[in-house]
């Protein structure tokens, strides 16, 4: 649905007022603690705001007091969207930043796509958000011009007012509200020229910074209602398993425990539905957890009881070594092999990962005659509505999905199973229920990043040029979460870093190989780009050394002449992250420019201290290109130490440079965590790791001394930012380790072998 439909004031009240019942249940903890806000913008204020005003579309409402309410329909999980989104609207509206109030949208299809995933918030919504601000601005100008009896073309907007320069008259936005009745919404409002931007491209401070530095920021885990119960759920250790029998007598004796309830068995396919299990409800979280520990449950583990990561690893590598489904082909790799001066073959392996956001999944729900309210740290409030409606068997319109701040998401919270758990328990108990996942729940029962095996073969001619490149990718598909018949990678997944390989190699063959899923597979920051970039970036470096060439120079050669690539020319199916290649091309000139920039930043080629090396990698994903250089050496115990990182990004037009820098810094650390430590393994069908002792992530002591970031100045539409920083990190580190030690690491986590 188009979000830019004009609402009459009455409609605005009616549509948004549907959530009015929810407003009465404001988050107790957050509101009780909130002092007079130091900023004009408060956290957790939801749409609708207090007063109807001039609402030209669902994202903007101008009140008669002049305050511009801006609705954020995307979820904030650290990427800064609650700052960047109003920057865009306020800029096109010529609004005063100090006179805007940010409201958080509930899940509602009237906003269009709300799934905060795939680094889409800016790249897919930039024009929509500009249009929301520009339409409002144009209508205010029309209203002012009409009231003055002058042509609209003689009027300008400046800092929250419309001005008629010739006569010196002006009207503030608040004053104009009463004059906007009957003014049509322009079809194609004119956008500002780049030179006139006031907020877009500026590093405005994070809107939620005050609340986040004072403990006032409210996350899903903080949601509270009077009389609510706290739930902790014991789920089957094996994916797809169910309760055979259970004894809750001991659990019920734990002080504070109120009830013990068996949840419905899991569905197949799992979709976003709850996993089932036994829920213990108590007056506080700790009692619920203690009661849960006292449960005696016998499980029917089901079809995945034999899942064993060591065994599966061999199966997956074997699958990648066999011919798979053809994905993209140019020339003939077999012919090239016969004529080759040298041949090189390598396999790469990467394990399952968990997103492990610092806030585990958590949701509060209430159920009543008016339907269901769910407050949760969801990346996808409309999917929360759908899933809750399905689980409860009620109409979606009766589910109000409130969006709190997210204590990290990284793809985990795009799956709303935890919200549905709370909703089901709320109806079952007749009381508000908050479900809080433990860290162990998060690491053992999530939607995991795919385990993967990559098989690569290449040939070189006598001059060390690559004449052929074969890449087979094997991993269980995210599609298996939605369809049990899916047996291998989908074209969409292969489009994440495999199908779109930009190298100028005359003979190219890309294949997809079968792999069965034995756990719920889901998205993790950068998704399949993680292992595709690791294999491609590492293999290119291996070939450079084999050819006796400098890895940076060699990558430049692989990119070839400046050109735009369309994988469809090689008969591949490729959707370019849902946006046209015309606006978001695979442009080797831009990729090479990023590569050259990072090499320059890092002082590529400089003399390094003994035992240190530099590694370089570049990868285009989510319509942005990021290149990374890592300086790596041995620590005092001989383990792998990342000393410093350099990153350059071409994401086209950026909204808030400081938030882009922050995303690149964070991607460096996230990429280090998965490169050095990340590994979930299954034994007897269950995940072995349970907490940060067995699933380590990078800590301060391992953080590089500096992460240098450069944003390329490019006149192009926005690309993604949240995810593209991650993929080049692991290959850059592996390549640097090789440069430092001569040892090639082809398996993640790299630190497993190297004591990091």
């Amino acid at each position, binding site marked *: 649905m188009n979000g830019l439909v004009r609402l009459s004031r009455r409609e605005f009240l009616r549509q948004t007022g549907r959530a009015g019942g929810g407003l009465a249940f404001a988050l107790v903890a957050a509101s009780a603690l909130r002092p007079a806000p130091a900023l004009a913008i408060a956290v957790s204020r939801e749409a609708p705001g207090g007063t109807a005003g001039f609402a030209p579309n669902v994202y903007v409402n101008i009140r008669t007091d002049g305050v511009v309410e801006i609705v954020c329909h995307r979820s904030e999980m650290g990427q800064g969207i609650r700052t960047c989104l109003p920057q865009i609207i306020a800029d096109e509206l010529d609004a005063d930043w100090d006179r805007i109030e940010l409201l958080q949208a509930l899940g509602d299809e009237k906003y269009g796509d709300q799934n905060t995933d795939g680094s889409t918030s800016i790249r897919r919504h930039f024009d929509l958000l500009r249009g929301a601000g520009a339409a409002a601005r144009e209508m205010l100008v029309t209203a002012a011009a009409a009231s003055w009896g002058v042509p609209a073309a003689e009027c300008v907007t400046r800092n929250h007012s419309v001005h008629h320069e010739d006569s010196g008259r002006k009207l503030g936005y608040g004053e104009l509200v009463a004059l906007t009745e009957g003014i049509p919404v322009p079809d194609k409002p004119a956008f500002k020229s780049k030179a006139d931007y006031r907020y877009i491209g500026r590093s405005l401070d994070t809107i939620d*910074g005050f609340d986040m*530095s004072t403990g006032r920021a409210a996350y899903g885990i903080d949601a509270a209602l009077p009389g609510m119960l706290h739930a902790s759920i014991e789920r089957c250790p094996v994916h797809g398993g169910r309760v055979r029998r259970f004894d809750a007598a001991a659990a019920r004796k734990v002080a504070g425990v109120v009830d013990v309830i068996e949840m419905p068995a899991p569905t197949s396919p799992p979709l976003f539905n709850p996993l089932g299990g036994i829920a213990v409800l108590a007056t506080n979280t700790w009692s619920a957890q203690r009661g849960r520990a006292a449960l005696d449950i016998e499980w029917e583990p089901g079809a995945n009881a034999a899942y064993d990561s060591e065994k599966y690893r061999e199966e997956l590598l074997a699958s990648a070594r066999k011919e798979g489904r053809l994905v993209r082909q140019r020339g003939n790799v077999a012919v090239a092999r016969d004529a080759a001066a040298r041949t090189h073959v390598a396999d790469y392996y990467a394990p399952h990962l968990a997103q492990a956001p610092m806030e585990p999944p958590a949701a509060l729900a209430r159920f009543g005659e008016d339907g269901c309210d769910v407050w949760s740290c969801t990346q996808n409030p409309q999917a929360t509505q759908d899933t809750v409606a399905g689980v409860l068997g009620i109409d979606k319109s009766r589910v109000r999905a409130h969006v709190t701040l997210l204590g*990290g998401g990284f793809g985990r919270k795009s799956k709303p199973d935890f919200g549905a758990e709370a909703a089901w328990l709320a109806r079952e108990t007749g009381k508000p229920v908050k479900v809080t996942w433990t860290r162990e729940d998060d690491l053992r029962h999530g939607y995991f990043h795919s385990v993967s095996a990559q098989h690569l073969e290449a040939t070189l001619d006598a001059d060390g040029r690559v004449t052929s490149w074969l890449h087979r990718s094997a991993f269980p598909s995210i599609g298996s979460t939605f369809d049990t018949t899916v047996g291998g990678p989908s074209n969409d997944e292969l489009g994440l870093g495999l199908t779109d390989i930009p190298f100028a190699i005359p003979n190219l063959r890309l294949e997809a190989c079968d792999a069965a899923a034995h756990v719920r597979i889901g998205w993790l920051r950068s998704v399949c780009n993680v292992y595709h970039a690791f294999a491609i970036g590492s293999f290119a470096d291996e070939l450079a050394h084999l050819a006796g060439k400098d890895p940076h120079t060699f990558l430049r050669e692989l990119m070839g002449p400046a050109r735009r690539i369309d994988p469809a020319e090689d008969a591949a199916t490729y959707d370019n992250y849902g946006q046209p290649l015309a606006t978001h091309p695979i442009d080797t000139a831009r990729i090479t420019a990023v590569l050259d920039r990072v090499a320059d930043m890092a002082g590529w080629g400089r003399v390094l201290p003994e035992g240190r090396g530099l590694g370089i990698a570049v990868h285009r994903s989510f319509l942005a290109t990021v290149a990374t250089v890592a300086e790596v050496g041995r620590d005092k115990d001989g383990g792998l130490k990342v000393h410093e990182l350099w990153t350059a990004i071409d994401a086209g037009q950026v909204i808030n440079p400081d938030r882009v820098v922050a995303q690149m810094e964070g991607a460096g650390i996230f990429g280090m965590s998965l490169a050095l430590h990340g590994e979930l393994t299954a034994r007897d069908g269950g995940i072995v790791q349970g907490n940060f002792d067995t699933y380590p992530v990078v800590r301060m002591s391992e953080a590089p001394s500096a992460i240098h970031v450069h944003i390329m100045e490019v006149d192009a539409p926005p690309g993604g930012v949240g995810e593209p920083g991650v993929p080049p990190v692991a290959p850059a580190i592996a390549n640097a380790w090789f440069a430092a030690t001569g040892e090639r690491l082809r398996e993640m986590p790299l630190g497993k072998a190297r004591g990091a």
Partner: protein
Amino acid sequence: MAVELTINGEGRSLDVDPQMPLLWALRDVAGLTGTKYGCGKALCGACVVHVDGEPVRACAFPVSAAAGRDVTTIEGLSADGSHPVQKAWRALNVPQCGYCQSGQIMSAVALLARNPKPTDADIDTAMSGNICRCGTYTRIRAAIHEAAVQKSAGDAS
């Protein structure tokens, strides 16, 4: 059974099982949700609060051990967010998702209390118990240095 303690300068009596971790007593009983759960096993630092000025992991600290003592949470660090560490956090736009930052700030305040001029190595040692999954470590380091400068300037004036 009631546990008597002082939270953010205010005498409180919490009707809880004495074995309940301070974290849940603060969050579920006292209604102070600024202190976060991240692991439940003293591994991540999201729950760091001060007891008599010393940093503790509230998720692994029985509320009874805080009886008769002064507990300071992020909400009590300053009335208006004006503590030099909080100001430095905002000046450098440290938080991304913000979830771990209560614990980070409480650990940083404790560090600066015992070491007003920490080096990078001091910071790495003191702050390695606090995980940030968003990866704000380099900014946290810089913010602690910034707070140290501001604090010494404030102390001198």
